[in-house]
């Protein structure tokens, strides 16, 4: 079985994210980059599936991103992934999900695939679109935000639990399929040292747009970010004053609903 895992290099969850001086994006200075958190669940599920299915199954990570993405591909290889495909091309720097999907689709088709795992969203742009665009390009079904994964005996069908509001949705899908993974699906493994050593020798195939013969990247740009906005300063803790507990509670409920917008 050919298992594909999509990978993205994103700023660390703890990194300070500030707008750069040109106002054209974030200031990457001093920012640590990591494997997109949700992609780790995808890697783990891919590896688990390989262990379940056995045979000559392979797990291949496909990553589109800057030169330094090699580091996160190596991390995935250290966790046990067999092979890496790294698509790196300056022309892709500000690619939209549609373009990314076109490029990824080409690389994945060239490699061959039976199932694709990815994270439910990138924790940088938080768009959660690429998987759907990719599914459409590859003409395969998609199942998003899954928390449980099972495969049928004949490896042709998957049984999934997809997290929706306040419930789980049971989904059945035919292979090939693309599945986006959420927290709770599994506990991603820690790379062993022999794994890290072996990863140094595993293949990472580097591809540019020319290699992929992909017309996707020349597609017209369909959207543009016109403004980067910082968060309004949250500042200090707002201590809610009031005569009695009930009064404070009423005010808190109001603030949570109207100001924080979390109710």
């Amino acid at each position: 079985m050919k298992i594909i895992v999509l990978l993205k290099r994103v700023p660390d969850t703890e990194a300070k994210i500030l707008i750069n001086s040109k106002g054209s994006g974030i200031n990457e200075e001093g920012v640590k980059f990591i494997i997109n958190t949700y992609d780790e669940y995808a890697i783990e599920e891919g590896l688990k599936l390989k262990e379940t299915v056995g045979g000559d199954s392979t797990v291949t990570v496909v990553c589109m991103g800057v030169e330094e993405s090699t580091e996160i591909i190596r991390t995935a290889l250290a966790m046990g992934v067999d092979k890496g495909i790294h698509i790196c091309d300056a022309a892709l720097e500000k690619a939209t999900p549609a373009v990314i999907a076109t490029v990824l689709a080409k690389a994945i088709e060239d490699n061959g695939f039976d199932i694709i795992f990815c994270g439910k969203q990138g924790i940088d742009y938080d768009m959660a679109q690429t998987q759907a665009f990719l599914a459409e390009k590859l003409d395969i079904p998609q199942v998003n935000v899954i928390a449980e994964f099972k495969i049928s005996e004949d490896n042709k069908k998957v049984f999934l639990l997809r997290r929706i509001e306040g419930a789980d949705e049971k989904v059945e899908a035919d292979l090939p399929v693309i599945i986006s993974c959420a927290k709770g699906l599994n506990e991603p493994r820690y790379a062993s040292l022999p794994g890290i050593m072996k990863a140094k020798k595993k293949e990472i195939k580097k591809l540019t747009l020319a290699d992929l013969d992909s017309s996707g990247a020349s597609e017209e740009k369909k959207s543009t970010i016109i403004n980067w906005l910082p968060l309004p300063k949250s500042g200090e803790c707002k201590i809610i004053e009031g005569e009695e507990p009930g009064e404070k509670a009423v005010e808190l409920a109001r603030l949570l609903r109207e100001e924080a917008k979390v109710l």
Partner: protein
Amino acid sequence: MTTEGIIILIALSAVLFAFVFIVYRLVKALRMGKSEDRFNNFGQRVKSILVYVVGQARVLSQPAGIGHFFIFWGFIFISLGTGEHILNMLIPSFSYEAFFGTGVAVTISFCQDILAFLVLGAIVVSLFRRFFLKPVRLESDDPKAGREAVFILGLIFVLILLMYGIKGIGIIQGKVDGSSAPVSNIAANLLRNNLIRINVVESVFVWVHHSLIFFFLLYIPFSKHIHILGAIPNIFFRNLGLPGTLTSMDFEDETADKFGISVLTDFSWKQLLDLYACTECGRCQAVCPAYLTDKPLSPYRMIHNLRGHFMDEMGSLLSDNDKEYTEKPIVPEVVSKDELWACTTCGACVQECPTFIEHVQKIVDLRRYFVLTEASFPPEVQPVFKNMEINYNPWSFGYADRANWAADLDIPLASDKKSFDILFWIGCAGSFDDRGKVIAKSVVKLLERAGVDFAILGTEEKCCGETARRMGNEYLAQTLIELNIEVLKGYEFNRILTICPHGFNSFRVDYPQAGYSKPVVHHSEFLLELVKAGKLPSGSTGNLKGVYHDACYLGRYNDIISEPRELVSGIDGVDLIELDRHGKRSFCCGAGGGRMWMEETIGEKINETRVNEILEKNVDQIFTACPFCMTMFEDGLKACGNENVKVKDIAELLLEASKESEKGKG
């Protein structure tokens, strides 16, 4: 040669042959272990033998050791007597008197007589302890261990009685000079009128005695008394470095598919020799914070079980043709995972062991295997490692926030200053923990007041790697250590100052292994230095009764015991009292060895145990010199429902006291 002589010659030859063969196998088995250089510093090693074998220094550090002292020396002199007797049977003309003169012979005989009597006393006391006092250290879940001890003590007891019998008869027969053997004289008096066929009785005594001796010789290697063979070499080959030292690992070989220790033959020969050296005295167990709080770990049991395993496997290990044989994994077959992770690496066991067994190194080596090779450890450990890898601290704080605590304090940065006297290493707790930050800030204020030329690394500082190392993640530890060395090498300074004993220890033992040696000073030493130099006031406070808790990595590991006490008791108004377990024999707070970041789900909580011990002393404050001890005690106090007793770092205390004293002046 007499018939007796021939029989004894044959028996002796057979026994010696068998004994040499057994010892040969034991030595050969050691050679199955990995190499380790313990042959350096010969003079120091000979000195160890004199102090710890001849002088029995560690044995005598506890009252029960006096018994051992007598048994040890009694055994030697009794053996001299037995040797003489046997040689005499072979060569009738042989005697010490004939060979070495009367003086020597009389001395030996006298010492033997007196010591053997003391041994009898020691045995009675030992049995009394074992059966009536039942000290913690003799607790064992292996019923064989206790039986064996009683059997051996009984054997020695019988041997000594027989020896007195033989000597007594010798006196009666005029073969032995009774004046130099007072106890034997008594035996002679008792026997004189009660024996009819004295010669027959004598030869029965002699043959029973010698048979038992031969039996004992062959029994030793298969019992806990193997330590008679193992202890002396183990003391000779002991770790002469600082007690906190761990072996370094080499990651150059990229084809290696295993790291750390999973089977017996992964141990070094010295680690295997440790197994022969254990006397099962249980001193390690009696001080182990894990054992004393009902965790499954007991250092004694671990060594006992490892030795049992070693002995069981020895046949297969030494066999040449058994190609099919695969070694059993130590964990979980011999040591459970819970035991492995229960250790706080406090080092109390190693410190107490009379034969210098290195328990902590073994535990770390076993952890190394699971962390590095299997990537298997308690689930809560994974985020700790990941945080250290990504953000260089065990908590999930962004590394760029490391110097946030110092934001408003205008503290000089190493990157601005380049050259300075003191590099103040803040550590992760000082940088991120709210309580730790207070310690860091207090020290900064004191340094400023004393006019110290210092700087901090700010966001260039990274986790020192100490925790990762003791949790078995040597790869991560080395990575962090190298990153830090890279930064440290860019600046010129004289000493590193730490507020955390773990970082302190790491700079003393871990960093030099990575090629970076720089004098390091803990803030308890440094602040005292400043007070003594008159750069800081010793301060005063209202009446305050407190205890100082010794952090393991400060007191036990690095011998910094008097400095914090001197600093604290120098403050006017402080009434410093001592805990029963203090100084080198302090009791761990429960945070070491990475336990700070693990769940403690089995048994009593170590921190609460220690807090309860402290609360019995009715103190106002607990003084600490380690941010982790502080966290553990604050948690422990809350859990005990005590809101009155406060935990203060000695720097906080000094700062408050110096303010107080100034107010007084004003």
